[in-house]
């Protein structure tokens, strides 16, 4: 019985994947629309179930265990849901402001330390020494400075500063080339894993 349920599950997964790809490999069709609707239905349900359980485990249970001040947090959460009713949407602003405040504070302090200060430290290195050659270190220092300069839109670079801005653009494009190569890796890996599942399933039947 368990084996049959597992086989049925694999068959459902494989056929739904094939229906999903039918829109790309052939044309838009009702099988794809059916698959899309199924995905939305199950996806929404998972989002509902997991978030309700999260709220229950992280807020309701602690509140019922004696931490009664959690009712404030729960009330703030319920206030967010008023956003869907336009007459009372203003009630959600207090909770959203709270959430945005936390995010803003954390992003600012985190950016200042990790994204700004530590990156500057990493740029301010001796040319000779470390894990890179002097030429590599020089490349990275020049790339960092010129790319940063490219994003200075306060005034248009003129004269001697124009090549600096142009160099920044070229270094950035070079870096984006590396990004592109790795994006290809990611996407082709995801696709090949699904094709592998389909092929392996049909081979196991014969």
């Amino acid at each position, binding site marked *: 019985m368990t084996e049959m349920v597992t086989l049925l*599950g694999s068959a*459902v997964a494989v056929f739904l994947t094939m229906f999903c790809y039918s829109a790309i490999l052939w044309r838009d069709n009702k099988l794809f629309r059916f698959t899309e609707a199924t995905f939305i*239905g199950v996806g929404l349900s998972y989002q509902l179930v997991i978030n309700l359980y999260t709220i229950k485990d992280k807020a309701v249970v602690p509140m019922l265990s004696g931490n009664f001040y959690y009712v404030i947090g729960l009330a703030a959460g319920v206030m967010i849901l008023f956003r869907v009713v336009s007459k009372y949407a203003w009630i959600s602003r207090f909770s959203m402001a709270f*959430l945005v405040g*936390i995010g803003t504070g954390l992003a600012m302090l985190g950016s200042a330390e990790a994204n700004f200060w530590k990156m500057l430290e990493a740029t301010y290195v001796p040319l000779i020494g470390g894990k890179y050659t002097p030429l590599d270190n020089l490349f990275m220092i020049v790339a*960092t400075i010129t790319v940063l300069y490219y994003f200075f839109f306060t005034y248009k670079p003129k004269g001697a500063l124009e090549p600096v801005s142009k160099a920044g653009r070229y270094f950035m494009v*070079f*870096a984006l080339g590396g990004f592109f190569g790795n994006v290809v890796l990611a996407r082709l890996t995801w696709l090949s894993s699904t094709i592998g599942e389909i092929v392996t399933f049909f081979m196991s039947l014969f």
Partner: protein
Amino acid sequence: MSSLLRREVPIAICAIVALLMIFDNFFMVPASIHALSTEFKYWGTILAAFTLLLGIITVVRVNIYHISRKTDDRWVFALWSMIVFSISSIIGLLWTPDHPAYLWLYDNILMALWIAMLATTGFFITSAAYRAFRAHTKEAALLLIPGLFVVAKNTPALVAIWPPFLTIGDWIMAVGVGGGTRGLVIGAAIGTIATGLRTILGYETGYLGKLKEK
């Protein structure tokens, strides 16, 4: 009074909470302030769960709209969506997400389709590569050539045939990408700090939704 309550008070809440987070990290604050900051971070995780519920309400409303209006071509699929949503939610809530029936739904429908939908980008990047990735300008060539070397580095067959592909690809990633991206990261950090300051000072109010008050 209405404008004060509905606009200024939320902006003040945002500013106070943001400053609390910053002060707690950078200054020696009393233990009570530190405890409050820690508690606020925890409440943030609970509120985030509620915002995700908002998305569900919106999608359900859109589907119900299509069903009630019997929109051509859409209402049947919207109805199917809501039927699947209802059945899976009942299973998940009455039993737990741990229940074998719910796990079956997750593994064989949601996870399979999630992977499949994400993987469709593999098709599009290949067709885009044929039609659009042309080295017709200096910048396009400067983008394409390192990109192709990195693709070659990620191809085990090519690395087996000519190992320097790995060395060149590794250099492009570590030095080329490392240098350029660091500039972008620092720039983005400055942007984040500037946007944060604007939010604290009340210039950024997008999170308040539609502002009818002046």
